[in-house]
């Protein structure tokens, strides 16, 4: 054990002469930097952080004892202390000797306080790297001197750039293993500089380093006399990263309306940028309604002013409509308000991003349903080339157009990291599946307005003496959807109901004839038919949709397009073996022979409904019995009988 290496001088000591108050006052005056370490696997990220913590004396004696014993057990550095074990805190990480998730560590020097995010290098954990980068102002990109710039070096640099990081340290690590050779250092520096030229970094520092032995980490190395720049710690202490959020236009995303009684209505939130004083004019971004700041409320007494980063409660002079998700802004420089915009998206989920699928889009305080309407192009990690794409896989980056169900207030991400960012959430699993940085609003929607019509849905439905409904049949090919749908329509028709069957095959002959059977085309197929069903329900019809509709997310999307109680999901549940046996169109035979690709139930998934209103088990039953079961349900639910009782219009 080379314990001696830990016994480096204390960097931020409390002096004998200091009083505790003096010391604490100094602590308060220190500046602050959040940074991350990133780069490819095994380039030494965790080791570097362990080294920084240890050399700045942030490690306690009991932790050193634990580190020594861990190093013997799990260490990958022979007899030396394995500093990576200070940060790789999960059992799986220690067993496998890799970093899986980001670890946050804290240290301070005489000048600055630091929060460092140690992020994983493996491509499969890119989302965890992005997590660490999203709150950082500087990235240390480690490069193994023996390997040079790798694919992950580029990927992490691009993601850091997209996420708004403007300061980079390229730590050319393991320089001891190339004999402290300046030629290697110069070559890698030039290679990185050439590639990063387009990434918009304001500062890029190249430092030759050995994280394991401490060269140029906190102490100048005698082995690299040819290097005249600062040590890593010098650089971290002195680099100027202030993005001066306070100089930008005032933005206050409303987080929470605080209304303990009728006399107090405060808007709580964190000032995203700029500053605000009592008496200043503001507008609510979405409505454009103006008011002034009456009070800036805080527990210890009202404040005269609040600046970027402060969490405060604002009281306005006027009772204007403001709720969570709106932004209070300066009237002089307003954000965009739009329901269509272009954005960079980083995708995190194993299930690819599919244009047309609805996700939940969340900004710091707003939430709305959103769809990627167009995947413009993917970004090639190696050369920034634009690649055409129809879907976006995990860890990929693309420029997309998005459309939201309601307008958002936002800035472009390059203008404001808080009001220009969003995440995408999967509607079924609730996982965070992507992160977005808004580029600009799309103007195409500006000139299209809703034309209001005098005859509404209720009037149309009343004339037909029925309540509109969308009966959505889902099930495998050959499960009996079309047969049952046809029979049901005949019975409803005979009873004087106004109906229409939207049949999957029929729609694909015309409206959807440009679509194939890939996942992204299936999503678009359902999106279009759901919109058509909605129009037909608005016309007062009882619509029977007979589509395989294999994905839960799109059936959920269709459900949410309709009004409450209007959508009835009918699961035509026939086991795959039975469908294969029936094979009414001979499709299974061809698919099993390899002549049809992307066949639902075989090589394309079918996600069965979890809580369909009507669940039909078809095996051993006749279509007539199935239709009776549906009619029973409809009668009990009174959909077919009850008068339409909602307001008119869409």
């Amino acid at each position: 054990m080379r314990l001696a290496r830990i016994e480096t001088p204390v960097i931020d000591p409390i002096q004998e002469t200091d009083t505790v108050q003096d010391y604490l006052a100094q602590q308060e005056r220190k500046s602050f930097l959040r940074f991350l370490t990133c780069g490819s696997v095994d380039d030494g990220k965790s080791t570097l952080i362990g080294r920084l913590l240890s050399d700045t004396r942030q490690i306690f004696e009991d932790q050193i004892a634990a580190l020594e014993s861990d190093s013997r057990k799990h260490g990958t550095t022979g007899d030396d202390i394995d500093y990576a074990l200070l940060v790789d805190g999960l059992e799986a990480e220690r067993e496998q000797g890799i970093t899986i998730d980001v670890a946050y560590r804290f240290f301070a020097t005489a000048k600055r306080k630091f929060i460092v995010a140690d992020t994983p290098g493996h491509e499969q954990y890119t989302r965890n790297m992005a997590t660490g980068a999203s709150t950082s102002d500087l990235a240390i990109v480690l490069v193994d001197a023996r390997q040079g710039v790798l694919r992950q070096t580029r990927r992490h640099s691009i993601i850091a750039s997209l996420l708004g990081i403007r300061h980079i340290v390229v730590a050319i690590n393991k320089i001891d293993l190339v004999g402290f050779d300046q030629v290697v250092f110069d070559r890698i520096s030039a290679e990185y500089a050439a590639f990063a030229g387009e990434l918009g970094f304001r500062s890029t520092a190249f430092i030759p380093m050995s994280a394991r032995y401490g060269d140029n980490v906190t102490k100048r190395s005698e082995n690299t006399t040819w290097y005249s720049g600062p040590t890593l710690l010098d650089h971290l202490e002195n680099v100027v990263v202030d993005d001066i959020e306070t100089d930008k236009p005032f933005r206050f995303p409303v987080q929470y309306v605080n209304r303990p009684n009728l006399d107090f209505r405060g808007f709580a939130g964190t000032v995203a940028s700029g500053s605000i004083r009592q008496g200043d004019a503001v507008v609510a971004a979405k409505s454009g309604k103006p008011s002034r700041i009456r009070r800036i409320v805080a527990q210890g007494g009202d404040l005269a002013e609040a600046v970027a980063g402060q969490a405060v409660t604002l009281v306005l002079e006027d009772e204007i409509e403001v709720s969570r998700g709106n932004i209070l802004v300066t009237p002089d420089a307003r954000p965009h308000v739009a329901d269509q915009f272009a954005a960079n998206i980083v995708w995190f989920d194993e299930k690819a991003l599919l244009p047309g699928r609805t996700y939940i889009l969340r900004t710091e305080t707003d939430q709305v349903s959103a769809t990627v309407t167009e995947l413009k192009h993917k970004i090639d990690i190696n050369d920034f080339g634009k690649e055409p794409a129809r879907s976006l896989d995990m860890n990929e980056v693309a420029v997309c157009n998005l459309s939201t169900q309601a307008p958002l207030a936002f800035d472009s991400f390059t203008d404001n990291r808080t009001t220009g960012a969003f995440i995408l959430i999967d509607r079924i699993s609730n996982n965070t599946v992507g992160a977005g940085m808004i580029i600009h609003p799309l103007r195409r929607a500006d000139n299209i307005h809703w034309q209001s019509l005098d005859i509404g849905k209720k009037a149309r439905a009343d004339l037909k003496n029925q309540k509109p409904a969308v009966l959505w049949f889902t099930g495998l090919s050959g499960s009996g959807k079309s047969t049952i749908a046809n029979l049901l329509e005949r019975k409803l028709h005979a009873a004087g109901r106004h109906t229409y069957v939207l049949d999957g095959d029929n729609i694909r002959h015309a409206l959807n004839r440009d679509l194939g059977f890939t996942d992204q085309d299936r999503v678009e197929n359902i999106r279009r038919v759901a919109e058509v069903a909605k129009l037909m329900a608005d016309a007062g019809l009882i619509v029977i949709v007979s589509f395989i509709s294999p994905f839960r997310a799109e059936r959920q999307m269709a459900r949410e397009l309709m009004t409450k109680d209007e959508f009835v999901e009918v699961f035509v549940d026939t086991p795959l073996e039975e469908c294969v046996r029936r094979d009414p169109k001979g499709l299974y035979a061809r698919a099993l022979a390899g002549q049809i690709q992307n066949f639902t139930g075989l090589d394309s998934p079918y996600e069965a409904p979890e809580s369909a209103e009507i669940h039909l088990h078809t095996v051993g039953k006749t279509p007539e019995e199935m239709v009776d079961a549906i009619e029973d349900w409809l009668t009990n639910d009174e959909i077919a009988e009850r008068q339409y009782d909602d307001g008119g219009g869409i």
Partner: protein
Amino acid sequence: MLARLSHLDRLEAEAVHIFREVAATFTKPVMLYSVGKDSAVLLHLAMKAFYPAKPPFPILHVDTTWKFREMIEFRDLMARKLGFDLLVHVNQDGVRDNINPFDHGSNTHTHVMKTLGLRQALDKYGFDAAFGGARRDEEKSRAKERIFSFRNAQHGWDPKNQRPEMWKIFNTRVNPGESIRVFPLSNWTELDIWQYILREDIPIVPLYFAKRRPVVEREGMLILRDDDRMKLRPGEVVENRLVRFRTLGCYPLTGAIDSDADTLEKIVGEMLTAKTSERQGRLIDRDEAGSMEKKKREGYF
């Protein structure tokens, strides 16, 4: 020239933001209150976040029945003073089986009285978000945890599959039965906590201050004999020593340190020259390697 926020101002704003985010997006939040210094800071921040209203959630103490008596007195005093809604839950199965740290060891005792007790309480009230005072600088597996940390319907944590957490945009969505543990103090260090207590003059349990107390030396730790449920072993003597606690838990599992720090300034001064971490005084973390991660996966805070 606009004032730049100090380090503590930034930490305070971040925590206040997190409190409000939970209040705005969850249906039934609760704040876990363990009566220690971190809980004291948490409570102080919650009061600030919603001023002039009261925090719109109750405060829950999972009582293992082995807390220091002074902790319980302090808890009840604070509830009265600040007027919050205090829920106390005790695992009655554990009481029936007389689970205690002396006969069953720290592992079983903590699992039954704390982890299972907490799970019972969360299920009983159906809370969908629970604030805790954990900090990332405390322990290696905590350094890995998100601020909004997802728990499945069994309260389990899956450290290998955490939701990404971008910027200050928190994913607060859960399905029925699932919940989120929320850690407003994630980015605070022990020094920040003490500095903030000093700056804001936050009341804390007197056990943190040095005083002569009856302690027994056992297995290398100084244990305060808080009541006669602690039987003396042969050769053990109770001595009155000038001691204080750096961290507080169940009294038989929490070691005191020799100290004459009887003011906040002295405590901070002592901390600045400390050579060991605060969790060293906790017996439960030393039982086995990775023991905190294991407990967390089972639902411990």
